[in-house]
């Protein structure tokens, strides 16, 4: 039985982003593992420790994303695979999901696919649900805890964090899940893992290797835009006492009809 984590590199969350005259965005060279994937990778390693499962970390992307795979290996994932094909240029979730779904089929005997809640750069998660749909598997998103998973029996029970509260839901395997921050304390790479990762030879699969027609994307990224500037500077409320300052602030907010 196989557990697969899907990850990629995203720009450093501290990076400053600038937009050029052509609507292109620049965020510098520093890339980190998609922050949400620290949780998904850790969850896979925890499952490996508790069950007799093999773990694979998968990325769909250019050489630039190989580092995210190495990070996964360094934390304790067994093997890594990268999928790349010219047809994957662009940022269409469904094209991406077709590649992931095909890679999962090729890996074989997969019981669980784990994603981090979203990609921090494109702020998108549609690909996750689309992978589940393309595979026809159980979809459990926004998982804050895996209560129980029985790979032999083919069942899973999780807690989902939704706007309506915490939902306990059970389903059949194979399943696709996405995880939120509450699920675990992210693990660090181990030194032995780092040595293994540095030596790892990571296979690259093309669409032809996967035997899949990726189709063409419907979503076009047209351009980036700077955020609208916030007008004016902060107005510091002065006053002799905390009470004076509080009263002055309340006046301002009521005056401006914020309340």
């Amino acid at each position, binding site marked *: 039985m196989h557990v697969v984590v899907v990850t990629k590199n995203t720009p450093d969350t501290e990076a400053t982003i600038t937009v050029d005259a052509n609507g292109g965005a620049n965020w510098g060279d520093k890339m980190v593992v998609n922050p949400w994937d620290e949780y998904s990778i850790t969850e896979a390693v925890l499952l490996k420790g508790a069950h007799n499962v093999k773990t694979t970390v998968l990325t769909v992307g250019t050489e630039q994303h190989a580092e995210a795979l190495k990070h996964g290996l360094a934390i304790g994932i067994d093997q890594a695979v990268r999928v790349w094909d010219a047809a994957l240029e662009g940022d269409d979730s469904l094209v991406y999901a077709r590649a992931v779904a095909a890679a999962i089929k090729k890996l074989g005997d997969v019981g669980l696919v784990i994603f981090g809640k979203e990609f921090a750069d494109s702020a998108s998660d549609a690909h996750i649900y689309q992978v589940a749909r393309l595979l026809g598997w159980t979809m459990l998103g926004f998982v804050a805890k895996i209560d129980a998973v029985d790979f032999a029996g083919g069942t899973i029970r999780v807690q989902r964090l939704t706007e309506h509260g915490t939902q306990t839901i059970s389903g059949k395997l194979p399943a696709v899940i996405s995880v939120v921050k509450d699920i675990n304390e992210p693990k660090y790479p*181990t030194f*032995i893992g*780092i*040595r293994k990762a540095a030596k790892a030879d990571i296979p690259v699969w093309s669409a032809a290797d996967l035997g899949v027609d990726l189709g063409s994307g419907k979503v076009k990224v047209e351009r980036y835009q700077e955020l609208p500037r916030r007008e004016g500077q902060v107005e510091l409320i002065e006053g002799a006492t905390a009470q004076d300052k509080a009263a002055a602030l309340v006046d301002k907010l009521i005056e401006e009809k914020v309340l």
Partner: protein
Amino acid sequence: MDFSLSEEHVMAQQMVRDFAQREIYPTLKEWDRKQQPHPRVLPRMAELGILGINIPVRYGGQGFDYLTLALVCEELERVDTSLRVVMSVHMGLNSMALLQWGTEEQKQRLLVPQARGEKIGAFGLTEPDAGSDPVSMHATARREGDVYVLNGEKMWISLATKADHILVFAKTDPAAQPAHKGITAFMITSDMKGVSTGDIHGKLGVRAGSTGWVAMQDVEVPAENRIGEEGEGFYIAMSCLDNGRYTVGAGAVGLIRACLEDSIKYSLERRTFGKPIAEHQLIKQKIAYMQQWYDAARLLILRAGWMKNEGQRNTRETAVAKWFATDMSVKAALEAIQVHGAYGFSDEYDVERYLRNAKGAVIYEGASEIQQLIQADYALGFREDRPLRCELPAYDVDFWQEEE
């Protein structure tokens, strides 16, 4: 000449950075104020393997090279000096001495548990009135059959009350001429009868670090715990300093980086006269100097690390790196406080702690004045290295990483 770090180096550096920043930094200030070690430091550094980073896998370590040790020290001291001090005494001054001088039996018995972090190591050379002049030490060791009986007191010992294995130096021949030939090294354990330890409080800096004293009263140390030959202790101690100073210097590089990074952040945020202070020329000058000190100190340390990897004697190169890096860390901390203005003077920001911490390292493991004498003596031809009976082994990736 290749200045690039390997993928292994970069990943190990990132891992230690994440650990120190996420787990230790958020609550470090409280422990510094309380003058107590952060309780997570030792157990987590053991668990993560940091305490055995550059020891061969066959001796319980992680199989990384000596350069990685420097990178680790830089990341640890970027957060707080107390973290790096652990590496200086446990690794630089103790475990690496076992790697260099220990017999195979001693490596298996003493080094393996240290590299795994099951036993913590410390180093006892300095005495209440013998610091820069260790040959004047009073501690004695008297052979009685299968044991040596040790008496004496060691002072300013980092991790004195935390360590299980303490590498101490004592005179087996107090009358020896020259006197340094009468010194012998021993590994005592904290559970031996007659060993007592205590903490010292009220230090200017490294307040989250553990510093104390070790007293030995008729401690019976089995002969199998003698490290090296009788009378070889002084050479062992000096070789330990080649490694201890390396970690101190590497840590100081991290401290300079802390000053630089904090000053960059603050000077971009803080505004005076209608613009960020980073746009004022005199602030720029301070930032420029900190950058220069960081680059130069780091290059000196990495050269020493490269020489260790190659198996080359590096006493001079390590000493000059330690001297420069620690002196510059004091200057960088002073400048960082100046950049932060009145805020830098309060413990609201970290820079005042950097200054308090930096000051220790220009005193311990060879005060800057001693380092200057060393450099001058090498340059003038008054001093030269003689081969040691046991040299620090060159880094051999196959030997280091081979699982037994």
